[in-house]
């Protein structure tokens, strides 16, 4: 195991502890919140705080290993930045539509072809 320089380990330790706390908070929120719409906030915390901390530490670590600046992890960060709101919105739409269809005995108020309410 090669030793890492100090400019990796000191920010890396701070970032990893912060990211671990954020990940724990997000998973506890997923487990303990009462309904679906508040449960949606938990994985968002993991995807922003925890993922940012772990990706920054990984970027520092791989830069120290390769001996030159590495920006490969920015691809994952960009992907998460783009995809997390999209999945949140789509799951929210599905939950609203399903709740509405379950509560009413009429045919559902939203058109299933477009997903919008008529």
């Amino acid at each position: 195991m090669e030793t890492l320089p100090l400019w990796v380990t000191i920010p890396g330790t701070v970032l990893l502890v912060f990211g671990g706390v954020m990940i724990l908070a997000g998973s506890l929120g997923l487990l303990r919140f009462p309904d679906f719409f508040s449960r949606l906030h938990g994985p968002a915390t993991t995807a922003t705080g925890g993922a940012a901390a772990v990706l920054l530490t990984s970027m520092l670590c791989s830069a120290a290993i390769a001996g030159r600046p590495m920006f490969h992890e920015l691809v994952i960060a960009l992907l998460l930045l783009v995809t997390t709101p999209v999945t949140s919105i789509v799951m929210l739409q599905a939950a609203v539509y399903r709740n509405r269809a379950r509560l009413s005995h009429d045919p559902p108020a939203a058109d299933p072809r477009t997903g919008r309410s008529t």
Partner: protein
Amino acid sequence: MNEVFGYAVWFVQVCLVVAMLNATVRLFIGPAAQDRVLAFDAMYLNGMLLLLVLGIRSRSTAYFDIALLIALFGFLGTMALARFLMRGEVIEP
């Protein structure tokens, strides 16, 4: 300082495993189908972060590609499942 960094890596690994366990519990007890989809989403995210932390721990850059693929396909899977919950079909004719 390397030992403290090793302890921090260990702490994040424990946190990620606990988070995956919580997501598994939510996957099993989730009252509605959308809760299970959300738990699946959180699980693939935690698994991807666990692979990255494993790459930090073993001082290797080979885990990056696998993490990228997991992020990509997890997004596709969550998207397809949510679309299926809403409309009953994934690809529309």
